[in-house]
């Protein structure tokens, strides 16, 4: 599996060298981190579209996207998901100093994970009958293509989906492209936006809460949705160092596997998630003793948090009780395809800053969720190896193993 770029040597590693964030609690990495550690909450009444007739009108909505200044002369795409991607990519590429790379043999690729793609744009097309044909052009892939065009990338351009686990799976595929030698660096991550389409879907399933999001708490009663984009620049650690760039973290291992049990609920025994974590740890060559921190999917639904806790205990044994586990979905809602990448960025920042953001709104322990969920406030602790888990509709599971580089 080769192109002109040499395949990765076994000793070489996949490095994260840039990160970019658009989230309800901050529209760059610095303000995002500040929001996380200070317990900011980006959930508010949704204003951008009508929520009439919906049981729940709140979500992690981004009220105004920061102004974008890009290298391209072309106008900013109208699609909101595309705008989020361009904003996050601008920051990530700048952090990785990729904009300075001008050698023609350096190929930047893109792998975007999404649960909804550009389908939010489809709602707008309903009011424009002459533009409806645009819906036939693979609308879930649209934002990725806009991003590729905006930055004039020359490497592979892929859109993948594992529903709400997409933001983790995309990083895994990017790592595989680097290992295959198909590309020099990859802009990888996830995006999704709030729109009436998705609010209506979750409304019908009655999985949104009218309360606060309370991951792992006995009182938890459901999730709230959010929107955003998270992107990282992945490249070989050796390439980064040759460019004079110090890796922010290493992506040691990844896996994405199926539950094979239910279209919208996690497998009650957590079989798929368990296999996914074991496979990712095996790929990363780490054992339970190596794991310092878990960034959980932690949606705040009764079933997800119970299943996740039970799987952590199965895989990690007694070690699970000694590992801090957090969920940041109470900060900004479940940002779907973006969530796992935003949480991966949180893991990287936790290692760099020596702090773990709290699980907001956690107050009453649940006997079935009996791990250390970092309640209250930010904890001073510097994890080296972190697990990032994610899950989505149709039995999708994903897991990343990250190593902090300080």
């Amino acid at each position, binding site marked *: *599996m*080769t*192109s002109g*770029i040499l395949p990765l040597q076994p000793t070489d590693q996949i490095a994260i060298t840039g990160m970019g964030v658009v989230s309800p609690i901050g529209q760059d990495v610095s303000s995002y981190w500040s929001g996380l550690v200070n317990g900011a909450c980006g959930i508010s009444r949704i204003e951008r579209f009508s929520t009439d007739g919906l049981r729940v009108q709140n979500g992690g909505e981004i009220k105004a996207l920061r102004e974008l200044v890009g290298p391209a002369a072309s106008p900013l795409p109208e699609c909101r998901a595309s705008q989020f991607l361009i904003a996050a990519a601008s920051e990530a590429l700048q952090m990785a100093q990729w904009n300075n790379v001008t050698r023609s043999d350096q*190929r930047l*690729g893109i792998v975007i994970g999404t649960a909804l793609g550009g*389908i939010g744009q*489809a*709602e707008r097309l309903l009011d424009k009958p002459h533009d*409806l*044909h645009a*819906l*036939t*052009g*693979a609308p*879930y*892939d649209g934002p*990725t*293509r806009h991003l*590729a*065009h905006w930055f*004039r*990338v*020359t*490497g*592979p*351009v*892929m*859109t*993948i*989906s*594992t*529903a709400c686990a997409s933001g983790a799976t995309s990083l895994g*595929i990017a790592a*595989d492209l680097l290992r*295959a030698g*198909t590309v020099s660096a990859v802009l990888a991550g996830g995006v999704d936006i709030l729109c009436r*389409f998705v609010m*209506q*879907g*979750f409304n019908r*399933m009655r999985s949104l809460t009218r309360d606060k999001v309370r991951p792992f708490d006995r009182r938890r009663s459901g999730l709230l949705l959010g929107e955003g984009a998270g992107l990282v620049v992945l490249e070989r650690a050796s390439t980064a160092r040759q460019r004079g760039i110090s890796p922010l973290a290493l992506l040691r291992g990844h*896996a*994405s*596997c*199926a*539950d*094979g*049990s239910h*279209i919208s609920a996690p497998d009650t025994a957590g079989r*798929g998630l368990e*296999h996914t974590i074991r*496979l990712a740890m095996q*790929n990363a060559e780490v054992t339970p003793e190596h794991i310092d921190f878990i960034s959980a999917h932690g949606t705040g639904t009764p079933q997800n948090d119970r299943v996740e806790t039970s799987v952590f205990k199965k895989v990690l044994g007694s070690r699970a009780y000694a590992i801090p586990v957090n969920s940041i979905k109470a900060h900004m809602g479940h940002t779907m395809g973006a969530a796992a990448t935003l949480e991966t960025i949180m893991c990287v920042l936790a290692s760099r800053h020596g702090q773990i953001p709290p699980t907001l709104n956690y107050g009453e322990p649940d006997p079935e969720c009996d791990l250390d969920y970092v309640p209250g406030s930010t904890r001073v602790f510097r994890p080296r190896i972190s697990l990032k888990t994610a899950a*989505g*509709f*149709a*039995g*999708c*599971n994903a897991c990343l193993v990250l190593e902090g580089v300080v």
Partner: protein
Amino acid sequence: MFRGVSLATGWGEGLHSLPKDAVAAAAGKQILPLPTLIVDDDRLRRATRECLLAIAAVETALRHSPWSAADLAGQRTALVYASASSYISANWSFLHADASSVVYFPYTAPSAVPGEVSMYFNITGPYLSFLSGANAGLEALWHAVTLLNTGQCERALVLVVETFSECEELFLLTRRLVSFPLVETTLCVLLERHPTLGTVSYDAGNATNGGLVHALATSALFQAVQERQGTPALALCGPTLRDGHEIARQLQTHWPLVADLPLAVVNARTGTCLAATPLVGLLLALAETQREQILCISHWGEAWSMVGWPRGSL
């Protein structure tokens, strides 16, 4: 190595049902549908037509393989799905939905199709969907081979579903696609881990500023194939026949031999079946030529994808 294949298109079952000239054979029809399946299985009561077609595709591939459904079950089988269109009808229906809508959320999600397949066959191994338009099929094939070569699984299903007829009114607005015509397709390839899969090669990229053919012709894989002794079968796929012919014409300026290579523009045989087209091209080249190497090329707008498949890895 290939252990089983199924192909169903609006033309019929199997490669032999494909016409020599899709546009002529369509005789003005713009969409060639697959038959709608009626499945009496309570587990599938909410499943969309696309889900049922996908399950049928896997069952047919199994019938043409030495495997049973039980062989697919468990963690050692990967399921890699690709589609450019199959989710559009469910999303279109949901966009117009009222309380009586028959489309259940989250069957709007592209992952609902492989989700139903994974449940039906109890597949719990590596799993994801590629949605990158017409390139998604080759990406799925590449990923399945990667999973097999790295020992993440023992078996892999590559599954492609492309459907149009349930939102025909929408696709008929897109003259560029339907004039060639649009052909509903399901395709399932069963792959088994084998050392020869290590010789499969992959390349992909994005041609900015309209330099698609230059990008293809200067890609490392394209050049490696040219330099190798012997000539490949060439499966060129565009989103439509017009795109395929245009690439073929322009590629000849970089590699004059293109005109003499067998197969060439796959869309001429298939019509427009998006992500399935390059995989059908691979199967056609394996079945209808004796070339040792098959070079499959697809593009979707500026993005392109390319697989070099040695016959020895069959």
